[in-house]
């Protein structure tokens, strides 16, 4: 008989294990990172082309001053810098949207790698090998860092190719990489704190929302610009890649992600696998409300998320409502600006009601995305096998999915209603009486047909291509919205613009409701819902 002994360490094998963990992490991130890098690069290229088409002679000093002095524009997009260059214009006009998208991606991806994998107990399999828990965390952070650089680098390359110079694109790309890595780090830390991925991502998203508000404050007046240093979303405003670059801003961009990653690794060391630093009690008294039917239960399961959206989007709408007031005062002071805007063809957007309509459309994009994600929750019930537990009871598929579809639309309607009210409240709070509750409500309700259409598309995807339940409606929404933002400036043909559902919305309340388009889109949405329900009835219930 031989004695049992621990096998001697085999540096080769251990190194291979570490490499394997790295490979695994990168496989989990690769596809979405490449897609994101490509989309961001395409976005900046379109933006640069759009600038050259719209301002063939560059932005005039008058236009520049107009953007700079407009508090609404400053707070939303940032203080304009170097608008006489295509790159500077891109950073100012598209940079904030790109930064938000990258931050959201970083949060979703980091929380998936560092908490979602653990929720699904796949990490256990990895950790059964000769691999330390902290080295899994480290690998994930390295991969996320590389992915951040990939995204930033792709944008840099795209801008250089598009002829935006060299130094500016490099700084902008570095800034984007830093921001992405920062929010990956934030989510890595919250993934150590919260015991489920949804909560880890929600904490990080809350911090992103706070960062966004801080940036609004920092950009509101020159006197408060120091606030921008406190928020990752403000660092790019300080960096000014195409202007008088302040390289000190690179310091937090590159340092903070490293510190956050180190903190995440250290926190990982302190906790159990599957455990968290903030845990809810394992036991509690039963709460038996809303367990009576599949629909009641679906409401119970998703109401917290809906409440989060209502609070978040409501707060955003209130800020926007307050800005409309500022905007009105500002416009009223200077007739000359109004004429200048009319000459630019932007007059519709810069009348009170036109601005309101524009804001409402942006808010409706968020509502439509929420509805798509809500159907994604139904899909994850199916994917996890939990729907099967319900469908093995005397519950028909139509009742189950129909309930989820109805609640998605109801949630969308509720979100729209509260968003409209928040717009109005914001306007009232900034002591503007130019926006009535009625006008605010009509402006957001105008978008409901799009919400029904996108919701229907989500149900349709659920029935026909369940794995793409969220992807299809989200892509249609985002691409459709970008089409209406960029298409006109690029003089794309009308039929291309007509592909976007948003093109068919009238500028309510400035213009009357486009009844025919509204009815048609609602009809298509309901039809898609019916087809989706039928398709689900006929197909197999499938897991992940």
């Amino acid at each position, binding site marked *: 008989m031989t004695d049992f002994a621990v096998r001697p360490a085999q540096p080769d094998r251990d190194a291979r294990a570490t490499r394997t963990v790295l490979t695994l992490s990168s496989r989990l991130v690769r596809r979405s990172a490449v897609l994101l890098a490509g989309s961001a690069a395409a976005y900046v290229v379109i933006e640069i082309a759009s600038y050259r088409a719209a301002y063939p002679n560059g932005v005039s000093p008058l236009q520049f001053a107009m953007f700079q002095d407009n508090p609404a524009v400053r707070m939303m997009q940032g203080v304009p810098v170097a608008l006489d260059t295509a790159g500077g214009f891109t950073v100012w006009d598209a940079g904030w949207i790109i930064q938000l998208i990258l931050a959201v991606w970083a949060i979703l991806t980091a929380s998936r790698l560092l908490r979602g994998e653990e929720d699904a107990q796949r990490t256990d399999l990895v950790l059964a090998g000769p691999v330390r828990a902290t080295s899994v965390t480290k690998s994930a952070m390295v991969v996320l860092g590389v992915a951040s650089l990939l995204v930033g680098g792709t944008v840099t390359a795209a801008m250089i190719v598009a002829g935006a110079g060299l130094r500016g694109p490099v700084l902008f790309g570095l800034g984007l990489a830093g921001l992405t890595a920062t929010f990956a780090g934030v989510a890595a830390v919250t993934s150590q704190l919260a015991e489920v991925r949804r909560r880890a991502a929600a904490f990080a998203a809350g911090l992103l929302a706070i960062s966004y508000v801080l940036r609004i404050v920092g950009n509101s007046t020159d006197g408060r610009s120091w606030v921008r240093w406190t928020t990752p979303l403000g660092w790019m405003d300080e960096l000014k890649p195409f202007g008088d670059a302040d390289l000190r801003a690179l310091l937090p961009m590159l340092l903070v992600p490293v510190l956050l990653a180190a903190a995440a690794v250290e926190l990982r060391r302190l906790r159990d696998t599957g455990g968290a630093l903030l845990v809810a009690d394992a*036991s509690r008294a039963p709460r038996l409300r809303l*367990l009576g039917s599949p629909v009641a239960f679906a409401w119970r399961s998703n109401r917290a998320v809906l409440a989060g959206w209502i609070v978040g989007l409501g707060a955003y709408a209130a800020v926007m409502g307050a800005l409309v007031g500022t905007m009105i005062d500002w416009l009223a002071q200077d007739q000359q600006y109004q004429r200048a805007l009319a000459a630019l063809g932007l007059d519709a957007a810069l009348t009170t009601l036109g601005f309101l309509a524009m804001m409402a459309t942006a808010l409706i994009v968020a509502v439509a995305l929420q509805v798509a994600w809500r159907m994604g929750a139904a899909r994850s019930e199916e994917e996890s096998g939990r729907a099967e*537990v319900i469908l093995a009871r*005397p*519950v*028909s598929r139509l009742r189950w999915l129909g309930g989820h579809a109805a609640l998605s639309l109801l949630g969308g309607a509720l979100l729209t209603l509260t968003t409209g009210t928040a717009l109005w409240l914001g306007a009232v709070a900034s002591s503007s009486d130019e926006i009535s509750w009625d006008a605010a409500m009509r402006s957001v309700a105008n978008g409901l047909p799009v919400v029904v259409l996108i919701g229907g598309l989500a149900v349709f995807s659920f029935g026909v291509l369940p794995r793409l339940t969220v992807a299809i409606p989200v892509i249609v929404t985002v691409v459709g919205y970008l089409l209406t933002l960029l298409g006109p400036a690029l003089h794309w043909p009308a039929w291309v613009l007509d592909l976007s559902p948003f093109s068919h919305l009238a500028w309510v309340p400035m213009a009357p409701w486009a009844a025919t388009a509204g009815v048609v889109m609602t009809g298509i949405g309901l039809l898609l819902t019916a087809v989706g329900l039928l398709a689900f009835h006929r197909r197999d219930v499938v897991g992940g």
Partner: protein
Amino acid sequence: MTTAAIRTAGLTKHFGRVVALDNLDLEVAAGEIFGFLGPNGAGKSTTIRLLLGLLRPTAGAAWLLGVPVAEVERAHRSVGYVPGDVSLWPQLTGSEILELLGNLSGGVDGAFRDELVERLDLDPSRRARAYSKGNRQKIALVAAFMTRPDILILDEPTVGLDPLMEAEFQALAREAAARGQTVFLSSHLLDEVEDLCQRVAILRSGALVEVAALDDLRKLTTTIFEATLTGPTPGFADLPEVLGVEPMDGGVRVTVSGAPGEVIARLNAAGISRLHSRAPTLEQIFLTYYQTSSAQREAVAAAHGATGAVT
């Protein structure tokens, strides 16, 4: 004639080009404990998910108490189900899950539910997230039994249970059958089926191999000889009565159907140092149905903890 509890006719399911279930004809009488056997991937779960209307058949049909399985609202009123892989809502406690599932079935007898919770030694105040695999399985068992359904469809229900709880489950299944409930028990654990079931179906690669009463199976005139030999193992390939030959440590295991005279003569010629003969366990009956490659047979045997040693 009374209505069968479960009936399938030509039930077939294809996933793309893979035939998961081929032309299954099955009839399970009311009040029966019916074993549904087969190795992993044989199509047991596919059959069960077809019976529950979770999968749509490629061809054929199935009925639960005469109700077509597609009419789930009627058919499922008389069904309790334990899935093969139990997924629960992590944020809900055990009692909340039982409340939900009970309500979906139109309400349950609370006293009986509490008795089941008690007997399975379950703490229902804990969140599902904190449950071990065994505890999740217990929740699924309580949820299936608590409505006293006419048909219990159980997909490997004892996975993750300790032996004590496994015994409790068997008691529950017997009591259910005594009350006239039908138990459809899928398993790859043959002991479990051997103890409980009156009839078993054996499924292999999506096709039904055999449906038989357990007593009939045991009556198969199969004998297993396990011989430790001093000389080299003789060949049996020319003997039609030999169903299987497996090498074992220092000898050979021969499964014989029919008269064993010639086999014993050849073993004797090779020099028997020890000979053990016995009637087959269900395990071995089961394995003889798998006249596939011996490698596969060994894999199945190993997976099921089949004993190779002679005692």
